[in-house]
């Protein structure tokens, strides 16, 4: 069973469907007591569920490094102290996981990708994000820019916990959360799109929750 435990704290506001919907006799649901607008097929949770494909990597800050590599092979790297020295932002964002939960108004601290990518020269249109532990995910480069993405290292006023991607994760909240790679260690800039881990396993290349792009073909 997958993602089926409920602590009773959630409030749900699903979609209202019209036309030829199949009605499940006796199902009522409990819509209505959230004031948040949910993407289609999502429900609200106040917890922070964990979803990962394997063990949680333990990444030491002393050895941590973030590398941006361009299509020409040029490399730009930051160690932990260098990342901490960059100006940070404290975005408050909504999270939408493809496993159906949404969590609203989550608080983060991190460095905008606009800052990190400012001096990078590239003709790339796509990015393949790499994580400690081997995870990858792909997205258009433009979705990392213009105030839409951060390398986040604090959540809810605390250092980011390992199971949530600490010491640092990508945060791209306008896409399904699997794009917000945990334990991020590199961003590879590419001229052509290359599928990442879940994208190779049938999940959508873009993953817009508002268009419900969960799986390849959605």
């Amino acid at each position, binding site marked *: *069973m997958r993602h089926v435990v409920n602590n009773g704290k959630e409030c749900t506001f699903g979609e*209202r469907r019209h036309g030829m919907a199949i009605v*499940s006799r006796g199902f009522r*649901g409990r819509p209505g007591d959230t004031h948040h607008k949910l993407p289609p097929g999502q429900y609200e949770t106040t917890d922070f569920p964990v979803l990962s494909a394997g063990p*949680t990597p333990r990444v030491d800050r002393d050895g941590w490094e973030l590398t941006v590599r361009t299509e020409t092979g040029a490399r730009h790297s930051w160690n932990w102290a260098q990342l901490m020295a960059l100006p940070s932002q404290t975005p408050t964002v909504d999270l939408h996981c493809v496993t159906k*939960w949404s969590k609203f108004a989550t608080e983060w601290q991190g460095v905008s990708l606009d800052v990190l990518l400012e001096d990078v020269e590239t003709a790339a249109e796509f990015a393949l994000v790499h994580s400690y532990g081997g995870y990858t995910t792909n997205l258009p480069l433009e979705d990392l820019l213009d105030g839409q993405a951060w390398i986040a290292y604090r959540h809810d006023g605390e250092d980011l916990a390992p199971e949530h991607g600490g010491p640092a994760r990508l945060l791209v909240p306008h896409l399904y959360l699997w794009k917000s790679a945990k334990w991020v260690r590199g961003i590879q800039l590419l001229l052509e799109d290359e599928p990442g881990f879940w994208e190779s396993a049938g999940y959508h290349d873009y993953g817009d929750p508002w268009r419900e792009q969960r799986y390849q073909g959605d």
Partner: protein
Amino acid sequence: MARAAVPGRLGDRLRWKTARLADRRPESPAAHTLVFDVPGWPGHLAGQHIDVRLTAEDGYSTQRSYSLASAPDGERIELTVQRVTDGEVSPYLADELAVGDLLELRGPVGGWFVWRPEQKEPVLLVAGGSGLVPLMAMIRVRRAVGSRTPFRLVYSVRAPEDRLYVTELSRDDPGLDRTFLYTRSTPPQWPRPAGRLTAADLTPAGSPPDLEPTCYVCGPTGFVETAADLLVALGHAPDRIRTERFGPSGG
């Protein structure tokens, strides 16, 4: 227009289908197995899941994901749903949905947390609570295809009455090694005291790291974190440990 339809497998999987409840049976005080007939079901791999969509009379609709419990069997599939108090969906599915009732589903989904009969390496299954469900599908597929791949199941539950598929797991199934762990209360004269999963529970003969088993771990987040960390510490390569977690949300 002569634009040919592409009736590929992908399209099959992604279209919402109407499923009819054909049968239901209790598995534990809190869990029921639901048997659905799904016209057009394209088949599935052990470990995959489906999305379920429920729609109320007033048009309100919500979705959840559930692992498939059964081995492929034509257009018939099985889910095992554990009721969670105050959940929006699980009490309805576990207790109210009656034989003949309809819901919508699509799938199968997921290409990572799966076991394929072509895999020849030993398999270590580590289940916490209802995390057994997708692992049971693997056990059932192994048996259905007559695979001789060694399987070892380590299954942790709170108490004896929480076990799923008790009768089936008690049957003779050559090459399937079974270990039950109880975290709160044990059967009478059970040799292992009640307690949480430890490294010792994962070390006995069967699937030591040097046999390079593929490990499938499924359960609540805390259980999966613990089990996966223990496996790494015992020497299992992280890339041979596949995890599926369900957090305190859903319903």
